[in-house]
């Protein structure tokens, strides 16, 4: 069995609260030892030795919200291209959203994704299945069969289920199957034709606004239903202070509730829309600076469990349009870690908490392998220079679509090497 010893590293493993100088020993694709103790053990005979020169080793990132164009819109992103982008960004596992054409609401589609991933992807791709057939918000899909085929979670992706009854039944039935229901909430009536955060900025631009309540109201409903049913609920991507407060209350009451926030909503605000920059049209919309600060604080204190990229490839045909006609969404796999590290460098969120939110927490919530450097697990890990400065340039982006919110942004901290099951899938 091949063995590699990564030594002289800073080992960050939130699953064990570890932040110490040490080594990681990988044998046969699994982690054999990690931390200061691994350092003391030394290298087994014949092991390849990698001097990390003080760089950090983290469990590979687990991104719970990734949109891919395959099947149906392969010109925007394929599973293979998303995998390359993820590997370069230090993401070793993704949960793929079911918003494809056809929709992943059927066993055959789950199998298609897993087969395509096996054949073309270098990272772990876990499909999420649709809660409702065709994402139409009415009939439940076959939760049990989908789970057995390999779906790791249920979600209607970009869509919000309007019917409280459908949501109640989904939560109830999914509980029996041990599946988490992930939901992104935006009341379609209240949001109406809105395209950005409601407020002065939208008013001057003449763009219809989306009030914060459009997110918080269906979320409040869902949290009550989670309490009623005892189901496992995950708020996929929240953006407002009032959403975070509601989630905090539900957690206090002891319900099985978790929440994610996108890196965009931790990094940007509505002012970034500027003069109709469609790359900053997102769903939920970028909010005010107060909301961004509230998201950062809720992430720090654990009210929000995980950070997602909400990677959503859109191309010229859907973005080079007047703002209100353009599609929402931004890519984010390649910049997820570096953008998150800004919160470490600014002192807003402790490093170990950030890594937990990027890796350990999503792996745990969705029962995925990874998120830890504990001996015995598959060696999904990344080597990161936490401090090296770099510039995001469109020409370097590996995603097929280039709709990044971070074009030209200065970053600090970059992935040097990505390992999936001990195999190097990316190296600078």
């Amino acid at each position, binding site marked *: 069995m091949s063995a590699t010893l990564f030594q002289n590293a800073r080992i960050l493993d939130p699953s064990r609260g570890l932040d110490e100088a040490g080594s990681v020993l990988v044998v046969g694709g699994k982690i054999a030892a990690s931390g200061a103790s691994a350092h003391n053990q030394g290298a087994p005979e014949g092991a390849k030795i990698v001097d990390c020169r003080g760089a950090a080793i983290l469990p590979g990132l687990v991104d719970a919200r990734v949109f891919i164009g395959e099947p149906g819109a392969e010109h925007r992103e394929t599973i293979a291209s998303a995998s390359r982008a993820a590997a370069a960004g230090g993401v070793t596992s993704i949960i793929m959203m079911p918003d494809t054409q056809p929709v992943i609401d059927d066993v055959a589609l789950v199998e298609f994704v897993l087969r395509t991933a096996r054949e073309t992807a270098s990272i772990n791709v876990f499909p999420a299945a649709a809660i409702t057939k065709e994402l139409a918000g009415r009939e439940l899909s076959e939760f049990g069969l989908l789970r057995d085929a390999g779906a790791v979670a249920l979600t209607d992706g970009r869509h919000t289920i309007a019917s409280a009854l459908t949501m109640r039944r989904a939560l109830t039935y999914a509980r029996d199957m041990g599946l988490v229901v992930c939901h992104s909430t935006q009341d379609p009536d209240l949001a109406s034709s809105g395209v950005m955060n409601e407020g002065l900025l939208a*008013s001057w631009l003449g763009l219809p606004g989306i009030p914060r309540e459009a997110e918080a109201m269906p979320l409040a409903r869902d949290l009550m239903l989670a309490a009623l049913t005892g189901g496992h609920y995950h708020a996929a991507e929240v953006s407002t202070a009032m959403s975070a407060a509601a989630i905090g209350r539900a957690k206090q009451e002891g319900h099985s509730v978790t929440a994610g926030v996108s890196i965009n909503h931790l990094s940007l605000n509505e002012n970034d829309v500027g003069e*109709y920059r469609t790359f900053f049209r997102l769903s939920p919309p970028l909010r005010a600076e107060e909301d961004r600060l509230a998201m950062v604080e809720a992430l720090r204190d654990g009210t929000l469990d995980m950070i997602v990229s909400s990677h959503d490839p859109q191309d010229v045909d859907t973005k080079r349009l007047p*703002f209100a006609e353009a599609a929402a969404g931004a890519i984010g796999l390649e910049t997820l870690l570096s953008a998150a590290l800004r919160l470490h460098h600014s002192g807003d969120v402790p490093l170990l908490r950030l890594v937990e939110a990027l890796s350990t927490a999503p792996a745990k919530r969705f029962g995925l392998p990874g998120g830890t450097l504990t001996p015995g697990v598959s060696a999904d890990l990344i080597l990161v220079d936490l401090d090296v400065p770099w510039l995001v340039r469109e020409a370097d982006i590996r995603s097929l679509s280039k709709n990044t919110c971070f074009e030209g942004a200065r970053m600090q901290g970059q992935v040097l090497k990505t390992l999936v099951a001990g195999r190097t899938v990316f190296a600078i």
Partner: protein
Amino acid sequence: MTDTPPFPVYPHRHLLGIKGLSPLDIEMLLDRADDAVAISRQPEKKSTRLRARTQINLFYEASTRTQSSFELAGKRMGADVMNMSVASSSTKKGETLLDTAVTLNAMRPDILIIRHAAAGAAALLAQKVGCSVVNAGDGAHEHPTQALLDALTIRRARGRIDRLTVTICGDVLHSRVARSNIVLLNAMGARVRVAAPSTLLPAGIERMGVEVFTRMEDALKGADVVMMLRLQRERMAGSFVPSVREYFRYFGLDAQKLKLAKEDALVMHPGPMNRGVEIASEVADGPQSVIQEQVEMGVAVRMAVMDALLDPRRNGSQAPA
């Protein structure tokens, strides 16, 4: 107009909105428009200043008056004017705004006039073409020539704009006319009031440099100018306001309400009017109404704007994108 105009060079390549114009820019455009009024009042209504220049009107929203006003303005300045009926042709075949823009750009126009239902459409177009672009209305964003013609009408009637109290009444939420006017009137030192039911006011209106009233009578007291906005039919039947008659009762301008304004207050409307909805005929056709003057000033302002943008002293009009 004389061959070498005494006006300063207009410092922008496009006219996309009033935002971004300085008070000096606005004054200069109004001065030029004053000259243009003279041309339109001659028996021979023709200048050669834009001779051999090509103007394309690209109207994605049907608008008989604004389109004719731009067409006439171009013709009176001597330009070759082409109307693209995009509402009925290529867009139906799925061509995007930018594809159309690139196609038109290849025909080497000197100036493009665009009206579009989406806010920001004019700015988007301007990024992709090598000629000057005039925004003739983009969604609920801006309609700069309307604000300029309103300002010209006021200035000619009152001799100034600063320190006048201007009350804008009606559907501010959906109105590009209101936004452009709020910016322009503030820049020129007027006191701006808005009056509307709160369902027709945008979020943050109180921070847009206006005094907000939800009782029209209060907003009219002592006003020098009353500017009415059009309320679209589909917004009257229960969605934003309960009914036409209720709207007219509280926010329609009739002779009785008008008495609250200054005795010689000007009554304005960007047209087309809904008589009996936002304005009573007795007022629209009354002695204080300057609605017909607004139409005349519209042609003059558009002549002036195009003349300023295509000023040969500016290299910008020929510059590539």
